[in-house]
């Protein structure tokens, strides 16, 4: 059988972002996939040499616009760990609230895009309509729809008033109700099941060995979520990772669907436990010499920051390992032996965030 080479991307209608895959195809069956990255590479890790450590928060928030809050929180937590700062409990829980709101909107966004990938455009519109409520919460409470920019070293910049907390709770109830209405469609619809069940299967052992992260890992049956570490405000909350065992595209979408509901629950818990108090502590001096390794859970999985300070206001080294970077090797292992028509679905099932990957 002759091999045909089909380029996938960089500009592809299914992918909002530029990534290129060279697919070697035999009779509509993909035999090999080779990625080509670098279309979004900016080189922001190097910026830590010319921006001071406070300004780097805004740069880190722009690693990825979808999970910007969590990048910012991860960076701030790393610097706080390096400098030995303990931030107020209220700031910790406020970070949790915004982080979980970000996770919700990211997952809803992904569920929409996923529906779009197999041609269910009405479902895409429905999910994005629900998502706008969360964007409104972000805009009203933090000042921007996407990049909320609430983190500072030592705490947070914005506060939530009791009125706003009540409003968030009522909006969350509406969001949860509307999401639950779509649960049956997403999990049991005949068309969706045909396009996702048994597609792109990855076993538990494979996922672990290839270093998959986040919902891709949990969809294969590994109960690992960085929030179990109890970093920041998660120490105050009850938390159980969401796990599915099938390891296919359906399992991964189900994990994300259930995580939307779980995040809503975490926001409620955080609001109920929100103590009164300061928003931030004063930070004096520069990050000392030393290194710090910090991991958080992003919507797409585990994100790792490695920071080396050198006693000046600029950092020596900032290394960001983002979840999609870890999920590309599993993707390369999933693609062979799938049908060409399933490629967009499988690529989207790892929730690719290319701007994260290439930084």
């Amino acid at each position, binding site marked *: 059988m002759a091999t045909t080479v089909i380029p996938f991307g960089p500009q592809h209608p299914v992918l909002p972002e530029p990534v290129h895959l060279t697919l070697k195809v035999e009779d509509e069956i993909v035999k090999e996939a080779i990625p080509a990255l670098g279309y979004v590479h900016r080189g922001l890790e190097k910026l830590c040499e010319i921006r001071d450590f406070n*300004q780097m928060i*805004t740069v880190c928030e722009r690693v990825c616009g979808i999970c910007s809050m969590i990048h910012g929180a991860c960076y701030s937590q790393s610097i706080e760990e390096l400098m030995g700062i303990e931030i107020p409990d209220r700031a910790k829980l406020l970070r949790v609230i915004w982080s979980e709101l970000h996770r919700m909107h990211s997952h809803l966004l992904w569920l929409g895009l996923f529906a779009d990938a197999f041609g269910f455009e009405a479902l895409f519109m429905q999910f994005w309509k629900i998502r706008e409520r969360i964007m409104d919460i972000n*805009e009203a409470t933090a*000042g921007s729809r996407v990049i909320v920019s609430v983190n500072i070293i030592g705490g947070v910049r914005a506060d939530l008033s009791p009125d706003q907390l009540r409003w968030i709770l009522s909006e969350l109830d509406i969001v949860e109700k509307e999401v639950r209405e779509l649960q*049956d*469609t997403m999990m049991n619809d*005949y068309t969706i099941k045909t396009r996702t069940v048994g597609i792109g299967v990855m076993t538990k052992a494979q996922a672990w060995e290839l270093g998959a992260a986040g919902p891709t890992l949990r969809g294969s049956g590994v109960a690992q979520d960085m929030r179990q570490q109890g970093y920041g405000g998660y120490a105050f909350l009850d938390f159980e990772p969401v796990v599915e065992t099938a390891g296919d595209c359906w399992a991964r979408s189900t994990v994300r669907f259930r995580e939307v509901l779980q995040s809503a629950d975490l926001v409620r818990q955080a609001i109920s436990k929100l103590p009164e108090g300061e928003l931030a502590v004063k930070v004096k001096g520069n990050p000392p010499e030393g290194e710090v390794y910090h991991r958080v859970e992003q919507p797409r999985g585990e994100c790792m920051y490695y920071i080396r300070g050198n006693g000046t206001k600029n950092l020596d080294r900032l290394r960001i390992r983002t979840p999609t970077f870890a999920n590309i090797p599993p993707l390369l292992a999933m693609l062979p032996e799938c049908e060409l028509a399933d490629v967009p679905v499988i690529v989207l099932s790892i929730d690719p965030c290319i701007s994260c990957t290439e930084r």
Partner: protein
Amino acid sequence: MLFTPTVVKNLLKKPATRKYPFEVREPFPKYRGELVIDIDRCIFCSSCERKCPSQCIAVDRDKGTWQCDPYACIYCGYCVDVCPVKCLSMKDVHRKPSTEKTEWIEQGTPPRHKKKETPKDAAPKGTAPVLDKSAAAAEEAAPAATEVAPEAKAEERPAAKDKKKDEKKGKK
């Protein structure tokens, strides 16, 4: 088939669409929109310049200019937080799109320097070229406040300053 109830529900409900350019929603008061400066209150301390993560602000203390590249600004609001005299603020509406890149230079009186710089000489330098460019841009959207204003500002500013001087004199 399982999606049908949602479709029916959506069909019976009011449309979700916000008819944006025709009906503008009440903006959220906390929204970090367009950056504005009250140049008369600025003391040219350069705090905003140092703090800006995007390095888009340039303050010249000797000439008394405050310059910002609005197209590189990332609307983070750090300059607003750090400003000691609170002359910087952010509107709750976004900056309007334009068809030309314009420069944004504000001319104020530098502190302590006794050298009198009449705003009439200074205004054409920075703000006049902006004027005709933004005129083209302004025909569609509602006129952008800062760029279109210089004409008015150039006239207003001396008056404002005279008032202030008068006040000061009065106090003395």
